[in-house]
Every structure is written in structure tokens, then in C-alpha cells.
């Protein structure tokens, strides 16, 4: 009886702790949504019960260039992922399958980009970009975003390639397929799920990036993350606008995150943990 009782207490306290954390983790998002629907008039006077309005959304989406920023962000992020895929897929294959000199150093150099302080790259790049006229261009951002997307793709895909048994490749060779055919007909289909999820995760990382676009662009091109800061900085703070900006910037990622759930662990840990 005593054991059962204490087990019950344990169960309740477990659930309670979990509930507290869940509230902490999820409520800010809910609060963001709530505020985004609040009119300025009700902003300070109400908490949960109010008259929802779309006026904030209207003001932000139509009244400002926020949509253009959204598009900028999309172009830069998608561009960065595409470049990384084109460069990274063969790179990951080579790192997985060939045992050349300096293989591990190369792999770790690529990984170290992930850990390098962004400011360190930005300071010299700022000048280089000025000279090459890459400052405030899509291309310039896509290039520097490789720091974010390339290590992820190469490391995650390397793991996926290593998962394919060498014998499958050899079997195809023996059947008379040349190297490129093997790659295209056998390997590519097999890594496709991994490629898609790694690509999407790389997109999320690129989308969320702030520092590069803050310092290497900002006039013609501005990402959502940078643009949304202006709602804080403005003299008369429109909290509703702030919430709308945040909500719009967050929505695509949450949808993507739901899509790649299964592969998330592997992506987040750069392939180190095979979830």
C-alpha cells in the first residue's frame, strides 16, 4: 500500500513538473498570438478576454514592407540551401566513401564553421564585400550563409551515405553501372529522405539567422529577423505589430519542424546522434 501511495505521489509530481515546463515553453508563443490579435486600445487593459482584430496584421503586411522582407528572407535562405545541396551532396559522398589524405581535417574544418564566431567572419567580409560590391546583395548573403547551411548538410549527409552498405554500390557496379549511374540510380534515392530533412533544417537555420544579414546587408535587402527589430526600436512601440512580426517570422519554421520531426535529432546533432 505504502509503495503504491508513493508511486502515486511520484506520478503526480512528474506530471506537475512537466506541466510547469510546458507552460513556460509554450505560453510565450500563445501570448504572442494573443497580442497579435489585440487592438492598441485593449492592449493595456485586457489579458485574455478581448475583441480579436486583424488590424495589426493588416498594418504590418500592407502598411509596411514586411512582406518584401519575408520574400528577401525566403530568397536568401532557399538560395543558400540550394548552393549547399549542390556543393554538399558530392562533398558528403566523398567524405563518406573515399579515404584520402586529410579527410578528417577537412571534415572538421567544415564543422568548425558552425562553431566559429559569426562576428569573426563578418568583420573581414564586410570589407571584402564592399570591394566586390557584394554588400547588400542576395549573392553576398547566400555566400556567407554557407557557414550555416554547408556544415549541416555535409555532416548529416555523410552519415546517411555511410549508412548505405558499400556492397549495394559494389553490386550495382558489378551489374554494369558506371559511377555516375550508381550515384544517381541507387544512392540518391536512398539518401533522399535524409537530404530533404537536412535541407529543410538548413533552411530553418538560415531563416533564423540574424547577425549576417544585420551587418552584411540592410538597405535594399533585409531579412525578417532584422526587419522585425525595428518594431522594438521605434519610438512609439506598437506591441501588436511586434507580435505580428514575430508570429509571421515563426510560422514557416514551425510547419517545417513538424514535417521533419523524425530526422530532427540527427540534423540537430549534425549526424552525431542517429535518432
Amino acid at each position, binding site marked *: 500500500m505504502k509503495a503504491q501511495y508513493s508511486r502515486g505521489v511520484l506520478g503526480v509530481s512528474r506530471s506537475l513538473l512537466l506541466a510547469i515546463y510546458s507552460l513556460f515553453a509554450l505560453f510565450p508563443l500563445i501570448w504572442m498570438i494573443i497580442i497579435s490579435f489585440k487592438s492598441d486600445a485593449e492592449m493595456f487593459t485586457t489579458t485574455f478576454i478581448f475583441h480579436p482584430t486583424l488590424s495589426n496584421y493588416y498594418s504590418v503586411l500592407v502598411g509596411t514592407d514586411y512582406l518584401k522582407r519575408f520574400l528577401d528572407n525566403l530568397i536568401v535562405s532557399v538560395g543558400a540551401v540550394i548552393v549547399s545541396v549542390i556543393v554538399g551532396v558530392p562533398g558528403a559522398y566523398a567524405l563518406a566513401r573515399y579515404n584520402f589524405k586529410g579527410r578528417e581535417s577537412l571534415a572538421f574544418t567544415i564543422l568548425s564553421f558552425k562553431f566559429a564566431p559569426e562576428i569573426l567572419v563578418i568583420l573581414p567580409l564586410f570589407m571584402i564585400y564592399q570591394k566586390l560590391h557584394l554588400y547588400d546583395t542576395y549573392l553576398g548573403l547566400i555566400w556567407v550563409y554557407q557557414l550555416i547551411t554547408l556544415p549541416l548538410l555535409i555532416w548529416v549527409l555523410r552519415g546517411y551515405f555511410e549508412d548505405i*552498405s558499400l*556492397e*549495394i554500390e*559494389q553490386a550495382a557496379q558489378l*551489374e554494369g*553501372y558506371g559511377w555516375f549511374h550508381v550515384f544517381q540510380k541507387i544512392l540518391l534515392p536512398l539518401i533522399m529522405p535524409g537530404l530533404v530533412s537536412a535541407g529543410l533544417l538548413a533552411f530553418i537555420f538560415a531563416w533564423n539567422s540574424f547577425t549576417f544579414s544585420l551587418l552584411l546587408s540592410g538597405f535594399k535587402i533585409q531579412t525578417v529577423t532584422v526587419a522585425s527589430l525595428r518594431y522594438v526600436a521605434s519610438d512609439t512601440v506598437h506591441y501588436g505589430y511586434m507580435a505580428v512580426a514575430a508570429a509571421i517570422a515563426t510560422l514557416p519554421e514551425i510547419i517545417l519542424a513538424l514535417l521533419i520531426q523524425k530526422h530532427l535529432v540527427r540534423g540537430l546533432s549534425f549526424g552525431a546522434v542517429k535518432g
Partner: protein
Amino acid sequence: MAHIEICNVKKKFKKTIAIDDISLDIKDNEFFVLFGPAGAGKTTTLNIIAGIAFPDQGYVKIDGKIVNLLEPAKRNVSMVFENYALYPHLTVYDNIASPMRSPTFKKDEAYIKQEIERVTAILGISKLLDRLPKQLSNGQKQRVALGRCLVRKPNVFLMDEPLAHLDAKLRHFMRAELKEMQSNFNTTTIYVTHDYMEALSLGDRIGILNNGKIEQIGVGDDIFYRPANEFIAKMMGEPEINILEIELVQEAAKFGLRIFNMDKVFELPRDVEAAFRRKVPNDVDMGIRANDIEISISKKSDEYIHGTVYSIEPIGNKSVLIIAVNDIQIRTIVPNDFSAELDSDIYMKINYKNAIYFDRNTKAFIFRHENEDLSEKVI
């Protein structure tokens, strides 16, 4: 159809030597078995023939032509991998069709369909054509892998432990199937296995590999009855052959043998005795298989050696009786209705006629009594 030769091939991986100076001459249409324990270099040898690995030294010849560095796609060899290497994203049909769709061996789809129907009927997998590999049992996967190999007309079939992952019963039937099919292959086959029954059953000839070296090449009877060394003797047969230290004693100008430090000197078969006399060996080991030891619960004559029952394990129509003599365990076979208490007294009589003698220091084969009726049949 091809004549496969390997001449003095060496292959190193990092610092370990995978195969060390191997030469094989495999005749056209021969079914050649490469037999050996894990890590002996069997798979590496296959890979070198297939072109998956390139030799560091020596030559690989297919029909007299040196193909050392020819890419696998151009060798026209067909291989069954141990882990089957089926394409996980393709159906059984597409897996088997794959070699006939490659740029090198392209066939039209009508021919492919016909071939697949023919081969899958033989293998009994006609009903699985739409499945994906992950929906198949190991036995089925193995047949698909075999099918993918058999739709081709290659220079040589290479088979790497194709039955290793099947359960005992399925292995028994598949082995018989393979053996029956063998006559229709009309192709040289090199078959790698670590299972002595597969080796003895299937091989026209058997090459035994250990530590990257060839230990013996011969027909099954050669290897079973006249193994080149103790290692090979131990690999062949279950329960494992007993290797016992014996002492040669010269009595009245004749060699006899003493065993277990007993006083009794046992007589050797005449040809064995003669062989010892021609060249007197230093230390001798005797290999004696479980079947060649007779068991009795009483000491019927002074030829019976005393021991105690160490363990008795029924295995169906017979039991394995392990007898302990001075801390040495000797495996013997008794009928399945034989029963005895553990550690009770037991007597055994060794049939010295069927013993195999080895040099204790080099472990190499010395001699074996030529059984008249045996030598007749082993041709």
C-alpha cells in the same frame, strides 16, 4: 564461362595483410569453394576477382587476360553478397531486372520479363515480385539475391556466404537446391563459406584459407580424410575431431603408440608403422573423430581406456558423450538411448585405423592408414 586464375596475389589493408601470396587456378565450369574461418581473406579474394578491390601484387586473369585494374562493370562477373546487397528502394522485380537494365548489359523489357519469370520460378519467389526487400524474410532475400545473379550469363558467379543467414533447416534445403541447380549453371562458380558442410557438399574442389594463406586445395574427400594440418582437421566435422598427444614407442623394432601415459602400447596399422619407420617424427599428435571411438561401460579388454563422463548431450538420433581423461576432454558419439551419470566411469576404445597423424610442432599432416575400401571409392 571462364577460366579464372589468381597468381601470387597480395593485398594489404592499412597494416593488416588480408591475403598473402595466393594462387588459384579455377577451371572453366568448375564449382570452386573457398573455405575458411572469419577473417581468413575469403571475401577479399572474391572482391579482387570481382574488381571491387585491386591487388597490391600479382595478377588476376579471366580467360588468360590480365584484368587487375579493370573496373568491376567491365569484368562481366556476377556476385551474391553475404548481406544480399539488395536495393532497398526497388521491388524484387526491379532488383532482379537491374543487371539487365544497366548500360553495359542492356536487354529489352520483354526479354527481362521472360528471364525474371524463368529464374523466379526456379527459386520459388514468383509471388514476391512486387515486394520491397524489407518485406522479405532472410531466406527470401537470399533467393532474390541469387536470382539477380542468375539472370545473367557472366564469366563467373561469385557467391559470398549466400546461405549464412538462413536457419539450419532452410540451409539444408537451399544447399540441396543449389547443388541440383549447379549442373545447369554452365558457368564457373566461386563460392565462399565458413560452413564445412556447404564446402564438402557443393565444391568440385575446395580451397582452404587461413590468415590470408592457402592451406590446402583438393576435393572433399582429400580434405576430410587427409587434411594438410590440424587446423583443417578441426574445421571439418562435428563434433570437432579430437587431437590427442601420443608417444611413439619402439618395441622389438616396431613402432607402437602410447596414449594418456598408459603403460599399454597400442599397435599401429602396418602402413602407418612403415611410414613412421621411413621417417621418424619427433612429436606426434593423433586426430581421431568422435565416430571412431567405441564406448563401453565396462573394461572389456586392455584396449579400453578409462575415463569419466564429463557431459552427455543428446542431439537426436545420437548423443555426444564427452569423456574426461586426465583433464583432457574427448568427444565421442553414442546412441541416443545411452544414459550415464555425470562423472561416472566409462571406457573407450580408439579405432587407430581411422586416426590421422600430425606433427605436433608444425601441426602438419604426416600419415593416415589407407583404408582399402576407402581408397577405392575416393576417386
